């Protein structure tokens, strides 16, 4: 039987709108405006989850994004399920389903709960200490650890929701819409700053909006009434954009912030449909005002984690904002005045407050008198030493604190209760401030880290800036805002303020118990089950740095990043190690402030939009003709064209034979093309390539090798001289963008005196490469009036011709060793020229071939592929390409490095050919090469870079880099594989047509 704890109607809850939802399979009712947490509490459900390590029953602790315990699985077992969602942030809607996490079979009866009784076996560093031996067992341990680790379950099907990104530029960004944020945003907008105000909640007003302290007054009204009027006025202000349900996740340099705007999570299913679920706002603000408020601290005492133990401020919010009582018999435990305000709120609504336990000796604030008048008993200088109740708090034991606060004295008093509000003071929410790179200052007196320095671009106002009392907040806000925005006056200047003052302070990070610490469980990090005991153990074991203690104990490493307990962890370390907290510093606050879904991060960049693909103009033809594709850089290139029933190997063998026997055609459109013009174009090429270019005649082509300044091969390709001052350079497909970048770099920074202009024209041309002994006949059919004789159109030359009135550039160049022509046409005619070649070639059985066959054919000829046979450590000499390095040129990029003692060493790895003893064995690319089989350890001489079965030679061939390979011609080496050792012989890199006779066949 559930109990209704809805005590008073609230203006923030729509009681005419009843909503049903399911939690752990059971149906409950709440109202529009409720969070899952407030609705559960209204149904008297506090037990919502089990803790991570000990599986202890846990309840709702807070009312906001700092919640460590009440993290639930939303819409379990569906494709929109979301793990680790905070019940305190989920707005309920009709049909919402949620369930507890980390428990089996149910939250009420959890098998893992046995860990709680085995707790002495699980100290800090348990995993590190236990699973390290025997070493060989790690894989077995890992299996079980992985199965028992983790909180929620991630969805295992595709996310059906739509996410979006938006860029926003504004003059002033205000983060947090509490009283400070609202006043700051309003005044910024009124002074013509384009202003954006964000708040993670669905309502504006922060904690002031539900405050009921009659001693806090603005212009003689209650602070909440006054603020409501201010909020009302926001509607009429131009220049102000307000976004609620929007949480700032990250604050990067130069005022670049990322925020998640939640658009549909609170809507019923049918209203979510086809709408953007969440939007990532990428905000660049000229000025940022942080008004993120403060987070209430818990108190650290024995068994401080039972369901029913909550932050005092949360109890106040549930009662004042949601109209829900968190218990029927309440106790507060505090070290400051704020718990009294919560207690009085409950008392005024007729909710019973049994007692207030205060660790201070006394306080003379006005509110204390009101509590006394209400007849609520206050235990001064007392602490809770233990709590009772397994699945729900049933009582506490208290004792008197010693004067120094390190022990307890006197007799134990037992008080029964079902709800305990704890109030350990306030921690400014400085997460965003520190993410931006700013440094915190520690105030020893108030025990807070706070942002002491403001900059021209950023200020912190309100309680995140270290001001907690109304008078300080408003006065300092007025002063800071005028300076920051450079304005003379704010619209709240001169309002009258009254507030109660806190006069007495006492802070004890770890409260003593009558039991020894070893027997207590004072939780510091609720989500990760780290206790004060674990922290002390880490210190005993020699950890000193806060970052190390954090990782060893996992304090602050949960999904809540220790928003509640991190300060206590620091305090306990400082006290135990005898250092000052200010010197200890804090751990790093990392983005995101609250977890982000991957969907929000990637936005629309999913599926085919995840990465850009580039397709050639002939792409449709390739698809129609059943090509398989491979990714080369961003390009989709035809890999091979299998016929019905053919394997890849069969297709490649067929294509390779056809290209040498009759004719083949390759789509070479992806090669990088750079148009080079200017009166110094020849000189420029002289400086960037290893060989000489000045004497290249117009209409001729030349192969060039480009080095890095360190002498290593960077790129290669054929460059054609189109005119006196005009060249077209081709680069490798993958290297095109980098080569252009490198050339531009040299032109702009080293040789600005050269008159050279570079233009990337890769996409402007489509290229069909005709190859094979019949290619000349095919080309002749297409362009009958072009004289294709070797005299008129020899190898390594160029012709500009018209095909059907379309200007074509034809280069007679070859990457296969066969007679071959590359026909370049404007991209839009790419498919047309391809078709023409295919039709003209029909009688010669023209065979389209892909990149795999191209690689095989060039390997037969020993032509390198930069990036496959080279890896940034190969000089042209290493590649046995000495012939391409000019000895005459005074300088070119990388020249000097070729004469460094290291690059001149004889025994560097050099490119060689490899032939297997058994011609049917094809080596694996990447396989290691050795000269000895019975030696351990054996020296690795090199590795296989390219390897194929050559159908034209009817044997396997391979290229490899081998230490001192040049001097190993004919040597027998071994390629040891998992199951066998393969014998190989070092050979020439050119396997086929060594005399290049086929080029003119």
């Amino acid at each position: 039987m559930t109990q209704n704890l809805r005590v008073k109607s609230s203006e923030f809850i729509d009681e005419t709108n009843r909503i049903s939802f399911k939690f752990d399979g059971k149906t409950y009712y709440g109202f529009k405006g409720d969070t899952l947490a407030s609705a559960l509490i209204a149904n008297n459900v506090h037990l919502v989850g089990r803790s991570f390590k000990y599986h202890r029953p846990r309840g709702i602790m807070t009312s906001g994004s700092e919640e460590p315990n009440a993290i639930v699985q939303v819409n379990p077992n569906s494709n929109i399920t979301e793990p680790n969602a905070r019940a305190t942030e989920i707005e309920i809607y009709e049909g919402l389903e949620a369930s507890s996490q980390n428990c089996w079979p149910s939250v009420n009866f959890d098998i893992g709960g046995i860990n709680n009784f085995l707790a002495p076996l699980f100290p800090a560093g348990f995993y590190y200490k236990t699973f390290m031996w025997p070493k060989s067992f790690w894989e077995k341990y890992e299996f079980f650890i992985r199965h028992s680790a983790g909180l929620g379950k991630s969805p295992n099907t595709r996310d059906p929701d739509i996410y979006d990104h938006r860029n926003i530029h504004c003059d002033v960004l205000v983060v947090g819409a509490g009283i400070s944020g609202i006043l700051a945003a309003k005044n910024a907008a009124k002074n013509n700053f384009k202003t954006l105000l964000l708040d993670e909640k669905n309502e504006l007003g922060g904690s002031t909006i539900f405050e009921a302290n009659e001693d806090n007054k603005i212009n003689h009204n209650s602070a909440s009434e006054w603020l409501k009027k201010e909020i009302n006025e926001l509607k009429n202000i131009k220049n102000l954009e307000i976004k609620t349900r929007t949480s700032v996740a990250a604050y990067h340099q130069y005022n670049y912030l990322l925020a998640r705007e939640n658009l549909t999570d609170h809507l019923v299913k049918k209203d979510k449909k086809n709408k953007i679920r969440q939007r990532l706002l990428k905000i660049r603000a000229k000025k940022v005002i942080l008004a993120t408020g403060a987070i209430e601290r818990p108190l650290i005492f024995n068994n401080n984690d039972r369901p029913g133990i909550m932050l005092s401020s949360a109890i106040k919010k549930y009662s004042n904002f949601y109209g829900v009582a968190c218990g029927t018999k309440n106790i507060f435990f505090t070290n400051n005045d704020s718990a009294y305000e919560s207690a009085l709120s409950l008392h005024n609504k007729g909710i019973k407050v049994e007692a207030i336990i205060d660790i201070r000796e006394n306080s003379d604030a006005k509110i204390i008198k009101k509590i006394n008048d209400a007849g609520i008993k206050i235990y001064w200088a007392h602490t809770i030493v233990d709590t009772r109740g397994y699945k729900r708090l049933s009582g506490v034991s208290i004792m008197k604190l010693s004067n120094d606060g390190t022990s307890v004295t006197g007799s134990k008093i037992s008080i029964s209760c079902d709800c305990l509000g704890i109030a350990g003071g306030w921690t400014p929410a400085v997460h965003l401030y520190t993410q931006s790179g700013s440094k915190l200052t520690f105030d020893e007196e108030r025990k807070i880290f706070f942002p002491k320095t403001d900059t021209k671009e950023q200020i912190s106002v309100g309680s995140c800036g270290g001001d907690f009392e109304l008078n300080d907040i408003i006065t300092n806000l007025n002063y800071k805002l005028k300076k920051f925005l450079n304005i003379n006056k704010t619209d709240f200047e001169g309002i009258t303020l009254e507030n109660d003052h806190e006069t007495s302070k006492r802070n004890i990070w770890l409260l003593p118990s009558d039991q020894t610490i070893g027997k207590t469980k004072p939780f510091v990090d609720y989500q990760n089950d780290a206790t004060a005991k674990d922290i002390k153990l880490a210190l005993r074991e020699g950890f000193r740095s806060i970052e190390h203690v954090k990782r060893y104990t996992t304090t602050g490493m949960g999904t809540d990043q220790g928003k509640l307990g991190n300060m206590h962890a620091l305090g306990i370390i400082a006290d135990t190690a005898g250092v000052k907290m200010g010197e200890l510093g804090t751990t790093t606050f990392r983005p995101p402030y609250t977890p982000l879904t991957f969907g929000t991060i990637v936005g629309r960049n999913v599926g085919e939009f995840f990465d850009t693909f580039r397709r050639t103009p002939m792409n449709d033809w390739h698809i129609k003709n059943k090509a398989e594709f491979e990714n080369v850089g961003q390009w989709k290139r035809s890999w091979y064209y299998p016929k019905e029933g053919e394997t890849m190997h069969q297709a490649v063998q067929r294509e390779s034979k056809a290209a040498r026997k009759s004719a083949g055609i390759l789509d070479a459109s992806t090669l990088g093309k750079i148009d080079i013009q200017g009166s110094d174009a020849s000189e420029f090429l002289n400086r960037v390539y290893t060989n000489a270019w000045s004497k290249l005649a117009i209409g001729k082509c030349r192969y060039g090798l480009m080095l890095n300044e360190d002498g290593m091969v960077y790129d290669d390709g054929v460059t054609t001289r189109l005119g006196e001052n005009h060249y077209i350079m081709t680069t490798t497909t993958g290297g095109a963008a980098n080569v252009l970048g490198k050339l531009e770099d040299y032109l702009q920074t080293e040789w600005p005196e050269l008159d050279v202009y570079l233009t990337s024209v890769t996409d402007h041309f489509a290229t069909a490469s005709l190859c094979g002994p019949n290619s000349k006949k095919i080309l002749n059919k297409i362009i009958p009036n072009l004289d294709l004789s070797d005299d008129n159109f020899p190898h390594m030359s160029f012709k500009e011709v018209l095909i059907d009135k379309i200007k074509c550039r034809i280069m007679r160049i070859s990457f296969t060793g066969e007679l071959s022509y590359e026909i370049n046409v404007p991209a839009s005619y790419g498919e047309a020229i391809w078709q023409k070649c295919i039709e003209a070639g029909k009688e010669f059985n023209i065979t389209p071939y892909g990149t795999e066959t191209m690689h095989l054919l060039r390997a037969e000829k020993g032509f390198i592929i930069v990036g496959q046979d080279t890896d940034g450590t190969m000089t042209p000499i290493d590649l046995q390409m000495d012939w391409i390095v000019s000895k005459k040129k005074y300088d070119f990029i990388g020249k000097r490095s070729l004469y460094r003692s290291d690059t001149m060493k004889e025994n560097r790895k050099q490119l060689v050919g490899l032939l297997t003893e058994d011609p049917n064995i094809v080596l694996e690319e990447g396989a290691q090469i050795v000269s000895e089989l019975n030696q351990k350890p054996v020296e690795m001489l090199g590795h296989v870079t390219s390897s194929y079965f050559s159908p034209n030679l009817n044997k396997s061939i391979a290229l490899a880099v081998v230490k001192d390979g040049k001097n190993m011609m004919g040597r027998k080496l071994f390629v040891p594989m998992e199951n066998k050792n393969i014998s190989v012989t070092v050979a020439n890199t050119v396997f086929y047509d060594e005399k290049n006779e086929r080029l003119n066949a």
Partner: protein
Amino acid sequence: MFLINCPYCGERDQQEFKAGGEAHIERPKQPTELSDDEWAEYLFMRKNIKGVQFERWNHAHGCRKWFNMARDTSNDEIKAIYKMGEKPPTQ
């Protein structure tokens, strides 16, 4: 994410730029005259200082111009941006 004031285009997001390492290292005019050590000094040695560092940047997804930046590496503050060939600021 820096906001970089390209001297040719104005303020743009860091995403549009490429960093190009230490600035003011001139390629030797006569590399063949240099000893291995001198050449290695040019080729490999770069400062990696904490404090104001002069760097090359390229507006790769914009005007594609190279320029120089004085950046404090300890807090990423961009102290100055100036064109190629210009002298670094003294302060």
